[in-house]
């Protein structure tokens, strides 16, 4: 439950979501990640710390650089990984249902 709360908080923030999408394409250093945002560098570091703490990102030392990877295994392990996708469809289908309940056929 604790983990789930953390992950929800982690992905509730738009910058953190943007970081996940960015790192999903390729692993990169904190500097490279920060250069993609207008946000102050310490703020980005804080976001990276949160994402790393809940294991959505993993760190790998490569020489003097630390690279951040997306941890897709972790994301899949969390049942809620599919949840936003499900919710997207749930919202669409709810809308469909509401629209069609009020539908008046043109005769």
């Amino acid at each position: 439950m604790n983990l789930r709360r953390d992950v929800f908080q982690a992905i509730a923030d738009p910058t953190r979501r943007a970081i996940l999408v960015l790192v999903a394409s390729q692993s990169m250093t904190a500097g490279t990640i920060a250069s993609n945002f207008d946000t102050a560098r310490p703020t980005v570091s804080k976001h990276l710390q949160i994402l790393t703490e809940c294991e959505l990102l993993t760190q790998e030392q490569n020489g003097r650089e630390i690279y951040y990877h997306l941890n897709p295994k972790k994301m899949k392990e969390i049942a809620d990984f599919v949840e936003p996708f499900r919710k997207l469809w749930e919202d669409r289908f709810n809308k469909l249902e509401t629209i069609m309940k009020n539908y008046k056929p043109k005769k």
Partner: protein
Amino acid sequence: MEQKTKINAEDGKQELLITREFDLPLELLFKAYVEPEILEQWMGTKVLKLENKKHGSWQFETTDPQGNKHGFSGVIHEFIDQQRITRTFEMENTSLGAQLEFLEFEKLGDDRSKLNMHIVYRSAAIRDQYLQFGMSRGMDLAHNRLQKVAEKLK
């Protein structure tokens, strides 16, 4: 709270199953899929083209909050009124490629119907990538709701 929409995404598989039961007659459920002006409302997309027939094609376009346009398109392989639509789906300008979708519409009663959506991707990796992409987009669209959930969990 009851979850009406169910998603089955088994680990390591290249497919996805979405099911949903509606408090609607089958006829109305199907109509929501074939009438462009209705589809536009619930899918939140612009319908540029929708040929509801075998060998027909379709083309949607959505505009994100930043004003960027995203194209979606495919062809229709099978179209059986109030029963089944088999089609391809592709998110244009992404590396995800085409996916195959089997939509089955089922009558459960006079005012009850069910949709089974079976999606087959090129690989399991692409399916997961798609789910991740769905996560970021879905999160934006359903953000307020999720935030409420997150706040409750604090």
